[in-house]
C-alpha cells in the first residue's frame, strides 16, 4: 500500500512518495526491510572503510537512496523524509552501521534541513530542501577559522549588508578552515560576523551560500594520513542574497548551537570502536599475538570499554525513544567513544610491531591490512565536533555545576 506525501504549509510536495507508513510496521519487520535492502544493494567494496569517501565514489549509492525516498530518514514526511519515529530511526542507523555503509557529505540532511524546518522561511525551504533530498546539493560547513577553533564565537569573517544590483545582499570576506570535503560541495553554510560592535556571541549571523559563487576559493589541506578530507575556504567579497540569511540577523550563534547537540550523540556511537576491535583482533591473529596473555588482558579491557560505551549509548537512545530531550551529559559518549577508539588504534600499532610503521595496506601473513588507518582516523576524532577538552568544560559547568573562573 502506498501512502502519499503529506502536503505542508509551504504548499509543496517535497521528495518522493514513501512506499508505506514505516512507523506502522513492527520494529523487527522494519529492520528486516532495511537490512535486506542494504545487503542486496550496497556495493561490497565500499563497506567498512577507514577513511571518508569522495562524492564521486558514493554518488551512485546515495542517488539511489534519494530516488527511493530514504535519504532523510529523520525528516518528517511532509518535508520529504521517511518520518521515522525515534525508535525506527535508531534501527535504521543501526542497520547502516552494521553493514558498514560509508557516510557521504550529509550536512544538508543532518543540519540544513532540520535548521530550515525550525528557523527558515517557506521560501527558503522551497529553494533548498528539494536539492538536499535529490542529492543535487551537497552542503559543507563554514564554521572554524584559522584564529577561531574551540573559541568559535571569536570568528572574524565579516558580512556587510549592502544594496547591490540584484537587491539587498551580504558582502562576505574572510577565511574558513577544517571544512570537510568542501571540494565536493555545491553549497556552504557560514557563520559570519554582522555586528563587530556587539559582544562576541551576539554579532554573528547564519548564511547560506553557493559554494561556486564568485570570490570563493577552496584549497584542500593534506593531512598526516596523506588524505585531503579538510579544506580551507577563502571568501573574498562574496555576494550572498539577503534572503539567504537564516533566522534573524545577529542571532546565528543560538541557531548554530542548537545543531551541535545532535553531533554529540552521533559521534558517540559505538560503531567505530567495535570496528576498531575487529581490526585489532585481526592484527593480533596475523602477528600470532592473539593468545599472548599480555595482549589478551589489554584487549579485554578495551572490549569492556566498548561494551560500556554501548550500554551508555543504549541508555541515551532509550531516552530519545521515550521522547525525552538529551542534556549536556550526552557529551560522555563523544569523549568516551573517541578516546577509547584512540586506545584501540594505538594497541593495534603496538601489536603490529615492526609493521606498525608501514603505511597503507600492509601484508601480514596471507592478508593485507591497513594498520595505521585507524590510528590516523582516531586523532582528529577527539578534536572535531567540539574538542574533548571543550566537552569536559561543558560537563564541569552544566552537569557538575563547578564554579566559573
Amino acid at each position: 500500500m502506498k501512502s502519499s506525501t503529506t502536503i505542508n504549509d509551504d504548499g509543496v510536495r517535497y521528495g518522493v512518495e514513501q512506499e508505506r507508513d514505516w512507523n506502522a510496521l513492527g520494529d523487527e519487520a522494519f529492520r528486516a526491510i532495511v537490512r535486506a535492502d542494504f545487503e542486496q544493494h550496497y556495493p561490497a567494496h565500499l563497506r567498512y572503510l577507514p577513511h571518508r569517501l569522495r562524492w564521486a565514489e558514493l554518488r551512485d549509492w546515495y542517488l539511489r537512496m534519494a530516488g527511493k525516498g530514504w535519504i532523510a530518514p529523520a525528516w518528517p514526511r511532509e518535508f520529504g523524509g521517511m518520518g521515522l519515529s525515534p525508535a525506527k530511526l535508531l534501527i535504521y542507523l543501526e542497520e547502516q552501521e552494521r553493514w558498514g555503509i560509508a557516510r557521504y557529505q550529509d550536512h544538508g540532511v543532518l543540519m540544513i534541513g532540520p535548521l530550515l524546518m525550525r528557523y527558515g522561511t517557506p521560501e527558503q525551504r522551497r529553494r533548498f530542501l528539494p536539492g538536499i533530498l535529490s542529492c543535487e546539493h551537497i552542503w559543507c560547513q563554514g564554521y572554524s577559522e584559522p584564529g577561531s577553533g574551540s573559541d568559535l564565537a571569536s570568528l572574524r569573517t565579516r558580512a556587510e549588508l549592502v544594496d547591490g544590483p540584484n537587491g539587498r545582499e551580504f558582502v562576505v570576506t574572510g577565511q574558513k578552515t577544517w571544512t570537510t570535503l568542501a571540494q565536493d560541495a555545491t553549497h556552504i553554510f557560514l557563520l559570519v560576523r554582522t555586528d563587530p560592535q556587539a559582544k562576541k556571541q551576539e554579532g554573528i549571523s547564519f548564511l547560506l551560500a553557493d559554494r561556486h559563487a564568485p570570490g570563493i576559493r577552496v584549497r584542500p589541506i593534506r593531512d598526516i594520513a596523506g588524505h585531503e578530507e579538510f579544506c580551507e575556504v577563502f571568501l573574498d567579497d562574496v555576494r550572498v542574497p539577503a534572503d539567504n540569511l537564516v533566522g534573524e540577523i545577529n542571532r546565528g550563534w543560538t541557531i548554530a548551537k542548537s545543531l551541535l547537540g545532535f553531533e554529540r550523540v552521533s559521534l558517540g556511537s559505538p560503531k567505530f570502536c567495535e570496528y576498531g576491535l575487529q581490526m585489532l583482533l585481526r592484527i593480533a591473529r596475523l602477528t600470532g599475538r592473539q593468545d599472548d596473555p599480555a595482549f589478551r588482558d589489554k584487549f579485554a579491557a578495551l572490549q569492556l570499554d566498548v561494551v560500556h560505551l554501548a550500554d551508555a549509548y543504549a541508555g541515551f537512545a532509550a531516552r530519545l525513544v521515550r521522547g525525552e530531550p538529551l542534556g549536556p551529559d550526552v557529551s560522555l559518549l563523544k569523549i568516551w567513544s573517541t578516546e577509547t577508539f584512540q586506545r584501540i588504534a594505538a594497541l593495534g600499532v603496538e601489536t603490529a610491531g615492526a609493521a606498525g610503521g608501514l603505511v597503507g595496506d600492509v601484508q601480514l601473513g596471507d592478508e593485507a591490512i591497513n594498520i595505521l588507518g585507524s590510528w590516523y582516523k582516531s586523532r582528529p576524532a577527539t578534536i572535531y565536533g567540539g574538542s574533548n577538552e571543550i566537552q569536559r568544560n561543558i560537563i564541569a559547568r552544566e552537569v557538575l555545576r563547578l564554579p566559573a573562573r
Partner: protein
Amino acid sequence: MNDKQDLDETLALVAQAVADFAKPDAARARAARDAADGCDAAAWEGMAEQGWLAVLLPESLGGTALGMRAAALIAERLGYAGHSEPFVATAVMAATALLRCPAGPCRDTLLEGLVRGRCVALAWQPPLGALSPAATAVTAREERSGLALSGVARFVVPAQAGQYLVAARMDGRMLLCAVDADASGLSMVKERTADGGLSLRLDFDRVVVERSAILAQGDAAESAVQSAIESGVLCTAAELLGAITRMLEVTQTYLCERQQFGQHIGAFQVLQHRLVDMWMQKELTRAAVGAAVTAFDAAADAPGPLPDACVAAASSAKARASEAALFVTGQAVQLHGAIGTTDEYELGVYVNRSLTLAAALGNAAFHRSRFGALVAVEER
C-alpha cells in the same frame, strides 16, 4: 496499567523507602566499624523489618519477589550511604543459594531465619580465593553418623553468621550443606577487612554434618552456589556504584567550597577535568550495572545453571565498578588534599569500603580476564 508499570511503581516506592532509611552518615558508619563485630545491629534489624532481606524470595516464602532490580537498587543505596551491613552476603547470596535448593525442613528453616535477620554465610572459597564453586577446598566423606567435612574455606562473610552454607566436594560431586557456627571440629580465624568488617577463615577438621543438613547435591548444588555467587558479584558492583556516587558528590562539594589563591579550587580547569573523568567512570559503571541487572532479570525464572550471558554481564559490571571505584577513590583523596587522608573526614569511610568491595568476589583484573574468555569478538 500493566505488570511492568506495577513493578516500576513498586520499585520507586522501595527506592524512596531505602533512601529515607539509609542516608550518608560518617559518624554512624565509623561507630559500626568500631563495634566488636564491625556491624550496625540496629540498622540490620531495621532492614529486616522493612522486608528488604526477603526481596529476592517468592511470596510463598514470605518474600516480595521484586527481583534483581530491587536488590541492586537497595545495594546501591546502602553503598551510597556507607552502610556495610551484610545485605549482599545474606539477602542476595545466601538467599539465592537457598532459593535454588530443593524445599525441605533445613532449607525452609534457614530461609525463615534469614528473612528475620539471622545471618547466613556462603562458604566456598579456597585460601587464595576463587569464584567457581568447583574450586572449593572442603571435602566431604561418608561416615556412619553422616558426612565429615575437612578442609578450608576463606573469605566467609558475614562473620556474625550463625550458619554457613558450605560447598564441599565428595567423590567428584558437589554438595551444599548447612553447618552451625558452633559445630564441633570447626575452628575459625577472623580477618579484618579494610572497611573494619570481619571475614572468616574456617578450618574444618572432620566436622560431622547430619544428612538432613544436605541442601543440594551434584549439578543442583553447583548451579545454586554459582547463581548465588554471580548475584553477589553483580550486587557488589551496585554497592560500589553507590560508593562512587557519594565520593563524587563529596568531592564536588569540596571543590565548590574550598578556596585557595582567592578563588574556589573548583574553578581551576585541571581539577574540573579530573572531576569529569571521575563522573564518566560513574556513568559507565551505572550503564554496566544496569545492563547486567536487565540480563539477570531476563534469566530469573530459567532453571539450571546461570546462562553465560549473565556470568559475562556480572563480570562486565564488577570489572568496571571495581576499577572505577579505585580510580575515583584515588582521585577523590588527591583532589581533597591532606584532609582526604584523615579518618575523621567522611571520604575515608568510602575509601575503605571501596578497597574492601573492589577486592571481594573477583577484582577488576579477574573479571576483565573472565569476560574476555567468555565473550569473543567476531572478526568480520
